[in-house]
């Protein structure tokens, strides 16, 4: 397992697109910093960028990487390896690379700019953790999509659709619901809406640090306790773990039944 993981990591890491992706983060982070000279401003901008980009890139890289690795996976399947072992290792190579890109592209320059010495450190750490978490979740989803649909064009289109849904449409629908039902107590609805979308959860964890004052201004007692207390954070973490675990289980199920 370790060896396949290593080689699929090598495979990913030598891809031109990974360099472009990492370079994009590096350039954006550095130029934002040069423009503003302000760590928290950079972190806020990078939050917006990474929350949108990590799921998108996770999905796009995930699908194409799977399609490109199909034959490699077949070759591995003729070896004395269990299917689970093969899938998790090949996927692992992808996930590690994506996380490394964010850590290098956003983390390194920020460290260089002295983020450790400022009060924004906790936001920085949450941002990196969430960027990695989203990369992991969405590349895993991409893997599932690609496994499910052998047609590349179809797989890619579905991946993009998934991104549109989670990154944009979902929030639009939530906002619409909130506006329509604004005369009713909305706490449960809101909490439900948050924990069902990993991008929202990642964002909430960050804005709970960034915009705590705004978050604390809110009527709903349930929502306030949710946002303010550790159990809210606990619920979010639990939900994020579920978001990783469920796709992993489907990967296992799909992997065990798929024909190559």
């Amino acid at each position, binding site marked *: 397992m370790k*060896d*396949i993981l290593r*080689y*699929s990591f*090598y*495979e*990913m890491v*030598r*891809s031109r697109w990974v360099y472009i992706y990492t370079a994009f983060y590096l350039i954006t982070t550095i130029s934002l910093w040069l423009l503003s000279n302000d760590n928290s401003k950079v972190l806020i901008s990078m939050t917006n960028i990474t929350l949108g980009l990590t799921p998108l890139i996770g999905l796009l890289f995930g699908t194409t990487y799977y399609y*490109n*690795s*199909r*034959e*490699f996976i*077949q*070759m*591995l*399947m*003729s*070896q*004395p*390896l*269990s*299917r689970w072992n093969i899938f998790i290792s090949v996927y692992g190579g992808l996930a590690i690379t994506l996380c490394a890109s964010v850590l290098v592209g956003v983390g390194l320059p920020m460290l260089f700019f002295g983020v450790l010495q400022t009060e924004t450190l906790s936001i920085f750490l949450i941002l990196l953790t969430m960027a990695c978490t989203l990369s992991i979740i969405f590349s895993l989803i991409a893997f599932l999509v690609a496994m499910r649909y052998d047609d590349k064009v179809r797989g890619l289109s579905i991946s993009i659709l998934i991104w549109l849904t989670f990154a944009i449409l979902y929030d639009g629908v939530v906002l619409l619901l909130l506006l329509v039902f604004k005369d009713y107590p909305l706490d449960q609805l809101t909490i439900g809406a948050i924990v069902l979308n990993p991008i929202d959860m990642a964002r909430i964890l960050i804005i709970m640090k960034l915009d705590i004052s705004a978050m604390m201004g809110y009527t709903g007692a349930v929502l306030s306790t949710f946002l303010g207390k550790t159990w809210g954070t606990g619920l979010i973490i639990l939900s994020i773990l579920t978001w990783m675990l469920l796709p992993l289980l489907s990967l296992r199920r799909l992997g065990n*039944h*798929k*024909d*190559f």
Partner: protein
Amino acid sequence: MIAIKNLHKSFKKNHVLKGIDVEIRGQGILALLGPNGSGKTTMLKCFLGMVIPDSGEILFQGNNIIGQYVYRQSVGYLPQIAKFPENLTGRELIELMKSIKSGETREDALIDLFDLSSELDKKMSNLSGGNRQKVNITLALMHDSPLIILDEPSAGLDPLSIKKFKDFLRLEKERGKTIIVTTHIMSLAEDLADDILFLLDGQVYFQGSLSRLLELQMEESLENAIAQILDSKKKSPSHERYIEV
């Protein structure tokens, strides 16, 4: 060595394997033949666990192997289309294969045979089709496995390499290996095979020695014999089978 019993497999509505019953015993080279879509690759993939059969049994050395994977330790497999991770080098793939499969390896002999050493440090995406196939063959045969399965081994190889490869296979046969080859090049099958397994429409049409098939079809060459079978099949699609055990 291998026994396949009543193996069925459908891909959606396409019923590919319709009850295959085969027993492959002992050593030697078996040519697995059949027209496109007859189920050759599917059958092999079922054996290797890449395709999960709908029903039936596959025994390898007496054990049912469906859902298992350890048995592949004793199998060397050359897949039909080999597009490997593009950014890895041949040498890395050989290292990877070594770490996956235990046992003695003999990659140096194969590298010498194909004169590959200068190509091993290049990325796979930069290799020619033929060289890629050579790396592929090296990967499949570097372990001294008792069973070797080759799916279209000659694809992309130049005549000299084909000859060297054939010699290598004959040597392996003499060392007591069981080798299963699928190919569309009849001369290659004729040249190498001791036995023929002919699939037609997802069923076994003929299994027996090469000479027996020629005798039955009253033809001089394998190519003609096969052509004749396919031709007669078109005229009267009956399911008369010739199986010699």
